[in-house]
Every structure is written in structure tokens, then in C-alpha cells.
């Protein structure tokens, strides 16, 4: 029996496509003393890679996923294991055709070439065994192909081995992962212990079990994907290669059909969600096939057989063609459909590279290796960050509920605003019952139920008449209401109150607190007590890691306020950079404080009536915060605004929240105050002011100069990303964040259409705009600007196009609409002088 090294720089657990890829790329990035182990045999250790269908469709609505897939395809090609077949996503319905048009736009936005919409006759010509009479059309992608993922993994592993950087060991099971003082120390295996600086869990469906060994959490669930192989197919008898026909995705039935040698493989995401626990997976020895090939459950596949017969009658209806192989193959599903990557927030130096499918495996391996070695990856991975989960989102019940809900949407038509139906009402603001009484339309953010708009404001739609824009097309109006625009106008005219309970709030305190926040915040934090600073947080390369506000509440006391969704990752970012000497502590007080925003021209009248404190413009300056008494409450009031109007964020202990709501509501009534939803706060209010949002405009792939936020001088003290930031200030930006307005919304069919975001921006001649770093221009955010009476888009444009007045096009659902650059910097399109905020 061979032995393992006693120590290693990094131990990778799992030799599927992901583990092999991570090990290889760590070696490529210059690391050695790497160890790769798996409890199964090589080259197929029995995980999901071994039974994967191995085909890759490059176009996804997610930019991150498309980039990871594109990089993976590049790597598979370089390894010589990619066979191009082309692929067609076929539509049986008109609704699907619209979705395929949307896919065309995503391909254009992310720069995937060789795509086209095709007719049933064209589909028939490419895939003659289909019955095209049941189809409306299709989306053809030339670049679709099949890979040999096991071979790819083997080649990557062998390259790292040949270089002397990697030791591998099959049939080696992990018995435990030891953690000391919050840091991973060693992996205990059936072949002995390995002391490790870094441990990487790339164990697919087993990952949650391994994470638990270390006291960490990898929120995914093993789930069944049913697959059968029928053959021998007479038409394929003369096939010279294992794939000669384009792969067909029958989108409306959540299925795919593909030639595989002499057989036809039929896969399904249509059956009932069948979820398992990692503990239920048999050992390699006990498994009838491989551990992740569960016995086929025929009853779950009955309808799918009929659907396959409808689409491929020539093959599936052939009595001589038999079902030769049928499995319930296990794959990994997560509560939000994205992978789980990065260092776990629970254990230092313990990394997760899980819930990654074959199509993105090598790209993820490379990106995570970059992240590990350089502190960030070229492709922004924030949507996949393991640190994104709140505690309730790590529970088995949540993971299973959302995975089950998401499973049947694998090929679904998912609206950008679509809300989850399962496991709602987890985090409720203290105002929740009041909001429910007002008919709030609740949308979820990080588990919080937030009013998007209030039905109680329906009357405002009439009141504002033609100034409130209606949306004619169902798709544009889905998960939306004209009430949002009416609430916006009421806030601009009078005042609006906004539930901001979903804010993530953490305090940094202690003698080293200033040093701690200075290190992370780009802007100067050595400010007077009572100042509120809005600041970018940069990655080492000068890209955006976050944008947030920090209040200085004392000499050694700062309060950080950031968004709900990205809060846990931001908290980890700060926490990881606290002084080593323990001189500053971070405390999450998200569940301690609730926040109510109050903005609009009448905000001062309302606040003034509630407190004896001086809330005049001079007495309570913009960008400051202070505790004031309002009746029997002591309220931390912070004068800032994300909607561009005069007003305050009001913070109280969460149990006093409802009292505060009632006080403000009652006092505001004579002033025309209305409750205002996140539709205003997150979209219409901010877009009119050209305020940027993390995850939309702000990503690590763009820098502060490009985002138009490099105002003021660079602070003297050091901070993460400073060198890169200084360098970027000296360079011509490759792209500039601009605000555009839509000139004409009328479609060819005469319907007014409203973009929702992520659409490609094109030159007037229809050409794709690409900056000198190779990044295409797309709509980062889209929404109404009710005060302007215009639909607003934000997009990074190459400098040549980033000129006010420049006329361009936006592609939306297959049609192109004229747009004009309104501003080519951060100047608001509404109230450009900021007189309202500073009134």
C-alpha cells in the first residue's frame, strides 16, 4: 500500500473534474506540495463526473456562469477532449420562442458567437430524427459540444504530477478534518494523516458531509437527474464518431436528447425533485453501479417517455430500440442554483469547490486557484461565494426546499424578478404586520420579507395619472406594478418611508478599530465622530468587492451598513482583515437594529415634529449621524440617501421598530407620507440619481475609475487595492459607466417594451461594443425614472461611445431600440446639483 506525504501545502479531496482541475491550476499558479485524494478508484472515483452527460451549452443568462463555461470550453479544447456537435434548444411554444430570443440577447451580451434562431425545417435538416411538426422553432448554438470529463481530469492530474507538484492517492477515504483555533490543520484518512496548510473540499455530492467534519457548512443537496440510453439506433449504425448530430434540448419538457455512439441518450429535469442526503450514498463497494448512479425509478419517467416519443418518434418509437441503461444519477443542487466556492466562513484555510457541473468545472478550477493564490480571480465569483449564505440558508430544510423548487426550472423560463415560493417568511421586520395590513407585495432579500410596493398606494396611480407609466407587455410587467412609479412620485413630491430591515449591520470596535476599517475602506475613515462615509471596498486588483456606508460612532467604534444579500461575504471580508493582535472586534448586529428610511421634501417636517433635536440643514448636516430622542425612543438618525431626496435612515433596536413605524406613519400622514417599497429604493429612486449597486454596476471586473467614482484624492493610509487603484487613476479607463435613456420603446408589433436589465448595448450600426479589455457593453441595471418620464439604463461603454448625446441601440427580446447616453459620468440625471439632498 502506498503512503501519503505527511504534510502538504494543500490537500484536495475529490478527484472528479473539479478536484483535478483545482489541483492542476494550483500547480499552474506556482504551488507545489499538493496532494489529491479520493475514496474511489482512478480514473472514475464514482462521483457525478463519472456519469455526467458531458455536453456543454455555452449560453446562460448569468454572466458569471457564461464566463466560467467559456473558459472551461477553452481548457477542454486545449486538452483535446472537446468534440463540437452544435446544439439546438427547441421550442414547442411561442412563450419559449420569446425566451430563446432572450437567449440570443444574452449570447450577444456575453460575446458568444455562432448563435441563431432557426425554423422547424432548419432543425429537421440538422437533426433528421426529430418530428419538427410539434416545434415552433429553436435556438442553435454552433459551439455546443461534448467533452470527455474523466479524461480531462486525468490529463490535468498527470500534468501536475509530471511536474512534481502533485501526489495523488486513490481509494483513500477521509475520516476527519482537524481544526485548531478556527484554522484547518490536517486531514485524517484511511492511509494516514496529512498536515495541510489548506484543505479543499471538491467532493461533489459528498461535500456537505466533509464540511461537517470540520464544523463548516456547504449548502448543497444530492439530487437525482434521470437518464436513459436507448439503442442500438439503426440510423446511428454507421456513425463514425460518438457524436455526429447536434444535441437537442427539449426546453418545454425539461429534457434533452443526444446521440451517443449507437445510442440515444435521453435526460430529464422534469420529474419530481428526488433529493437525497450525502449520508445515503453507498460506498464504492456497496454500490450496484457507481455510488452516484442510483437505481432508476421508472414511475418518475413515464411522462418523459411520452415526451421523448413525441419529439423523436423515429428512434424512441422503434420497437427494436431498447432501453439499455437507465439511472437516477446524482448531481449537486444548491438553494440558489449557483456553485459554492471559496474559503468557508467557519474555518480558515478550508475551501469549498462544490456544486460545480462538468460544463464549468475547469473554469471554476482555474478561478478558485487564482482566488486562493492571488486573493481574487479574473472572473468575479461573488454569486458563487460560499460566504454568501445566512445561517438559515445553510439549513437542510432550506437547501432542500429551494433545490426542489429550482430543479424543475433547470430549463425553465425564469423571469429576472421571479421570487421563490418555498421557505418564505423566515426573517420578518418588526413592521411586518403593519405592512401586511397595507397590502405589501413582499419580495425576498436574504430571507427578509421586504415590501416591493404597497397595494394601499393603488390610489396614487390614479392621482398621478399619465405620469405613471403602465407596461403593456406581460413579461415586462411581471413581478412589477405601476404602483412603484406612483410611490416614487409621491416620495419626490411629499415623503416616503422605506423598510430597510434587510441591511446587514456590523460594529467594529476596539483600539484597533480605525486601523481595521482604514485597511478595508477605500475612503478616508479617520473622520470626526458622527460622520457617515459611503465607500467602495476594493479587491487587491482594485475592482469592487463591496460598496457600503460606515458610521463613526466613537473614537474606537465604527458601524458598517451594507446590503442584505451580500452581507455575510462583506462581513467575512472585514473579519478576515481585522488586526492580528486582537485590538478590534467585529460584532454582527443585523438582528439587533432595524432601519426605517424616510425621504422626500417633507421628511424634515416629519422628523422635526417627532424630535426636539435640531434637524435643520445646518444643525444636522448631510453625511452625519447622531442619536436623537423621538418621543420615548432614542433613535440613531443618519442623514444620507440612496434615493436622492432629503431625509434620514432611522435606526432603533429591533423590538422598538414597530413603535417607530407607527410614530412616523402617524406624524407623516398630514404631510402626505406614504410607505414606499424597494421598487423605489432599489430601482427608480437610485437610477434617477445614477447611484451604483453592488452586483450590478459594481463588480471586481470593473474599477473605481471606470465606475466614475474616483472623486477626491487617494487617502494616505494603506488599504486593500490601493496600489492598483492609484495605478488605475493614472490610466485611461477602458470603459466608463454611463446612464442612458430609451428614445423609443415601440416594438415592431406596436407594443411598448421596457428592458429589465442584462441586455446588450450595441452601436448604431448594430455592432457589439467591446472595450479594450474585451468586455462587452450590457445593461447593468434598468428601470423607470418616473420623475424624468424616461426608462433608464446603466452600462459600461468604451470611451469612444461614452459621450453624452451618443446614440446607440439596446437589444431586447430580439428587437433593437434606440437609446441615448444621458450622462457619461456619475452626475445624476435627476437633480444633477443634488439640491434636494442638500436642502
Amino acid at each position: 500500500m502506498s503512503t501519503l506525504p505527511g504534510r502538504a501545502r494543500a490537500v484536495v479531496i475529490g478527484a472528479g473534474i473539479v478536484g483535478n482541475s483545482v489541483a492542476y491550476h494550483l500547480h499552474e499558479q506556482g504551488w507545489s506540495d499538493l496532494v489529491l485524494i479520493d475514496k474511489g478508484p482512478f480514473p472514475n472515483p464514482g462521483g457525478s463526473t463519472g456519469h455526467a452527460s458531458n455536453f456543454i451549452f455555452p449560453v446562460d443568462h448569468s454572466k458569471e456562469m457564461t464566463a466560467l463555461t467559456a473558459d472551461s470550453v477553452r481548457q477542454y479544447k486545449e486538452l483535446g477532449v472537446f468534440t463540437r456537435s452544435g446544439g439546438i434548444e427547441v421550442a414547442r411554444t411561442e412563450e419559449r420562442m420569446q425566451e430563446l430570443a432572450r437567449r440570443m440577447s444574452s449570447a450577444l451580451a456575453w460575446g458568444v458567437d455562432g448563435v441563431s434562431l432557426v425554423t422547424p425545417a432548419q432543425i429537421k435538416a440538422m437533426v433528421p430524427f426529430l418530428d419538427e411538426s410539434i416545434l415552433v422553432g429553436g435556438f442553435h448554438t454552433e459551439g455546443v459540444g461534448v467533452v470527455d470529463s474523466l479524461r480531462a481530469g486525468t490529463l490535468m492530474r498527470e500534468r501536475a504530477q509530471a511536474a512534481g507538484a502533485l501526489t495523488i492517492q486513490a481509494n483513500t477515504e477521509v475520516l476527519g478534518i482537524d481544526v485548531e483555533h478556527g484554522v484547518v490543520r490536517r486531514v485524517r484518512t484511511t492511509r494516514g494523516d496529512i498536515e495541510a496548510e489548506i484543505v479543499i473540499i471538491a467532493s461533489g455530492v459528498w461535500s456537505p458531509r466533509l464540511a461537517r467534519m470540520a464544523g463548516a457548512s456547504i449548502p448543497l443537496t444530492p439530487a437525482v437527474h434521470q437518464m436513459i440510453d436507448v439503442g442500438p439506433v439503426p440510423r446511428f449504425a454507421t456513425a463514425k464518431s460518438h457524436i455526429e448530430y447536434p444535441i437537442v434540448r427539449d426546453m418545454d419538457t425539461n429534457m434533452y436528447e443526444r446521440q451517443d455512439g449507437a445510442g440515444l441518450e435521453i435526460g430529464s429535469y422534469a420529474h419530481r425533485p428526488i433529493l437525497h442526503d450525502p449520508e445515503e450514498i453507498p460506498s464504492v463497494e456497496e454500490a450496484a453501479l457507481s455510488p452516484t448512479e442510483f437505481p432508476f425509478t421508472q414511475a418518475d419517467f413515464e411522462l418523459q417517455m411520452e415526451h421523448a416519443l413525441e419529439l423523436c418518434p423515429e428512434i424512441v418509437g422503434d420497437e427494436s430500440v431498447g432501453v439499455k441503461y437507465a439511472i437516477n444519477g446524482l448531481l449537486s443542487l444548491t438553494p440558489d442554483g449557483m456553485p459554492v466556492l471559496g474559503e468557508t466562513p467557519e474555518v480558515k484555510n478550508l475551501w469549498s469547490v462544490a456544486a460545480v457541473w462538468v460544463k464549468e468545472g475547469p473554469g471554476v478550477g482555474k478561478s478558485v486557484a487564482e482566488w486562493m493564490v492571488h486573493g481574487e480571480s479574473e472572473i468575479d465569483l461573488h454569486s458563487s461565494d460560499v460566504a454568501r449564505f445566512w445561517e438559515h440558508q445553510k439549513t437542510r430544510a432550506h437547501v432542500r426546499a429551494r433545490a426542489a423548487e429550482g430543479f424543475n426550472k433547470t430549463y425553465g423560463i425564469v423571469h429576472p424578478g421571479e421570487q421563490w415560493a418555498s421557505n418564505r417568511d423566515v426573517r420578518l421586520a418588526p413592521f411586518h404586520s403593519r405592512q401586511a395590513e397595507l397590502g405589501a407585495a413582499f419580495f425576498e432579500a436574504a430571507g427578509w420579507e421586504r415590501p416591493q410596493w404597497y397595494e394601499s398606494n393603488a390610489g396614487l396611480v390614479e392621482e398621478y395619472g399619465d405620469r405613471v407609466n403602465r407596461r403593456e407587455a406581460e413579461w415586462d410587467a411581471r413581478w412589477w406594478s405601476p404602483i412603484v412609479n406612483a410611490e416614487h412620485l409621491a416620495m419626490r413630491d411629499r415623503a416616503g418611508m422605506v423598510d430597510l430591515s434587510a441591511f446587514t449591520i456590523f460594529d467594529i470596535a476596539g483600539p484597533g478599530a480605525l486601523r481595521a476599517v482604514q485597511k478595508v475602506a477605500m475612503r478616508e475613515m479617520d473622520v470626526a465622530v458622527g460622520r457617515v462615509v459611503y465607500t467602495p471596498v476594493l479587491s487587491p486588483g482594485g475592482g469592487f468587492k463591496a460598496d457600503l456606508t460606515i458610521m463613526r460612532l466613537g473614537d474606537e467604534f465604527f458601524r458598517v451598513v451594507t446590503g442584505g444579500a451580500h452581507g455575510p461575504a462583506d462581513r467575512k471580508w472585514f473579519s478576515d482583515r481585522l488586526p492580528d493582535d486582537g485590538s478590534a472586534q467585529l460584532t454582527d448586529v443585523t438582528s439587533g437594529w432595524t432601519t426605517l428610511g424616510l425621504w422626500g421634501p417633507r421628511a424634515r417636517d416629519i422628523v422635526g415634529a417627532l424630535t426636539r433635536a435640531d434637524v435643520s440643514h445646518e444643525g444636522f448636516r448631510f453625511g452625519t449621524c447622531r442619536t436623537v430622542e423621538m418621543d420615548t425612543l432614542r433613535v440613531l438618525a443618519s442623514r444620507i440617501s440612496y434615493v436622492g431626496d432629503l431625509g434620514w435612515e432611522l435606526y432603533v433596536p429591533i423590538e422598538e421598530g414597530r413603535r417607530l413605524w407607527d410614530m412616523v406613519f402617524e406624524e407623516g400622514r398630514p404631510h402626505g407620507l406614504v410607505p414606499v417599497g424597494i421598487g423605489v429604493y432599489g430601482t427608480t429612486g437610485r437610477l434617477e440619481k445614477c447611484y451604483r449597486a453592488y452586483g450590478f454596476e459594481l463588480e471586481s471586473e470593473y474599477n473605481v475609475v471606470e465606475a466614475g467614482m474616483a472623486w477626491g484624492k487617494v487617502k494616505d493610509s494603506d488599504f486593500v487595492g490601493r496600489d492598483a487603484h492609484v495605478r488605475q487613476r493614472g490610466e485611461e479607463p477602458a470603459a466608463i459607466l454611463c446612464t442612458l435613456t430609451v428614445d423609443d420603446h415601440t416594438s415592431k408589433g406596436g407594443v411598448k417594451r421596457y428592458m429589465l436589465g442584462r441586455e446588450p448595448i450595441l452601436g448604431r450600426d448594430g455592432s457589439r461594443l467591446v472595450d479594450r479589455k474585451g468586455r462587452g457593453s450590457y445593461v447593468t441595471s434598468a428601470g423607470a425614472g418616473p420623475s424624468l418620464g424616461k426608462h433608464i439604463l446603466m452600462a459600461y461603454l468604451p470611451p469612444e461611445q461614452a459621450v453624452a448625446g451618443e446614440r446607440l441601440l439596446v437589444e431586447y427580446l430580439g428587437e433593437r431600440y434606440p437609446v441615448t447616453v444621458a450622462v457619461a459620468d456619475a452626475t445624476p440625471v435627476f437633480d444633477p446639483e443634488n439640491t434636494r439632498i442638500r436642502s
Partner: protein
Amino acid sequence: MPVNILCCVKRVPMTGGRIVLTTDEQAIETRHLGFTISPHEECGVEEAVRLVEQHGGSSTVLTLGPAEAEEQLRDAMALGIDRAILLLADEEFDGQATARAIVEAIEAERAAGTEYDLIFFGNESADAGNYQVGIRVAHALGRPCATGLKGVAVADKSVRCEQEVPGGRDVYTLPLPAVVAVKEGLNLPRYPSVPGRMRAKRKPLETRTPARAGAGLEKVRLVVPESQGKQAQILGRGPEAGPAVVEILRQAGIL
């Protein structure tokens, strides 16, 4: 001459890897396992389908087992069997009780006007391996029986049975009606087609609940015998292994 065939099968765990017993050692741990019928019975089903294709007549598949055994009956019908009978048994029946229940079912069928010319069994079940149900049924019905068969042919109201014996085959000709117990290798069973599977859903399945006769055999506990383990002979390493590989391929008749 059309033949009316009954084919008896048993739902058994689909083992592939190491067999694990339940903690009480009374059963195979099936948490991770699918279910199937034994390879012998698969050949019986295939032969029944072929005989009816050849001679006309009809085929019925029968099992005694839990409600889930419907899955195995539908599988058989997907291959071409016409109808199914499920003798519902929530508790375990020994070979004697199983045979009794099958005999009662056959007699009930006869009373209802269905007479079977030929009754197929697998030579032994894949799990218990008691080698007796077919013989017991034949005895109770007073019919001739041949076991261990690798060849079955029907002609002129008789069935020609080929039994594999060391050094060759014994051939028996039994008058119909008869009982046969067949072995893997009898034929190469087909895979179910998708249309076959879809038809199987609509084919008739009759469920009866037999009374269990008192047990004659008692199961004490199961023991997993020590396996031989995997053996591999290393023919050589690198190019020098070439001649040995060629020799093996030659022996196998591939070259």
C-alpha cells in the same frame, strides 16, 4: 398450436457490489439497491415471449411479493408478456408456502377458464436459492417437470427440454402441460423498448391476496459467504505485455 404460458418470477435486490445484511441478519440491506428478477427468470420471460411470437397463444407473468413487485411485472409486460398476476404478500413466504399459493392461483385461473400449457420458473431465485418452488408446483399439479434447462422448444403438444450436464446436454421431451425451470444462457433477453414500456402501463394486472400456509422451512439468519475477491493477473508492463495480450485475444477467438 397456440401456447398458453405462465411465467413465475421473484422480485429480488439488484446487488452489484458488496452485499450488506440488515442488522437482524434476516434480509439484505436494500437501502441503496434497486430490484430486479434473477437472470434465469429474465430468460424465462424472454422464452415465453418468443414462444408466443412463434406459436401464438398468450403469456402471463406471476409473482408473489410486496405491492412494489408490480414494477417487475410491468418490466416483464414491457418485454411482451400480455398480463400479470400479483400475489400480494407482505410477509415472507417460504418455498413451500410460495408453491402452495402459486398452485392455488393456477387452480383459480383454471376455474376461470385459463389453462396453462407451460409454466416457466427460474431454476432458482437470485436471493434465497432454494431450488424448489417449480418442482413443488409441478408435483402438486401432477405435471412433468424438467429443471436446469438451456433449451426449450414446443412442438406437437410437447416441449423439448435441453438440460446442461457435464460434458454435454441431456434432452427430455415432456408432454404438455408441463413445468420447466430454466437457466441463464437459454437465450439473450431483449431490452424493453419505449413503446413496450408504455404499453406495459396499460396491460391488465390482477392482484390477489393468498393465505400463507404454515412454514415448513424456517430461516434462522443470513450469512454473507466470504467472497474470493477480485483477482488480476499482471501480464507484463508496457510494450512487453503485448504478446501476452495477443495470446489471450487469440484464445478468446477475438483475433
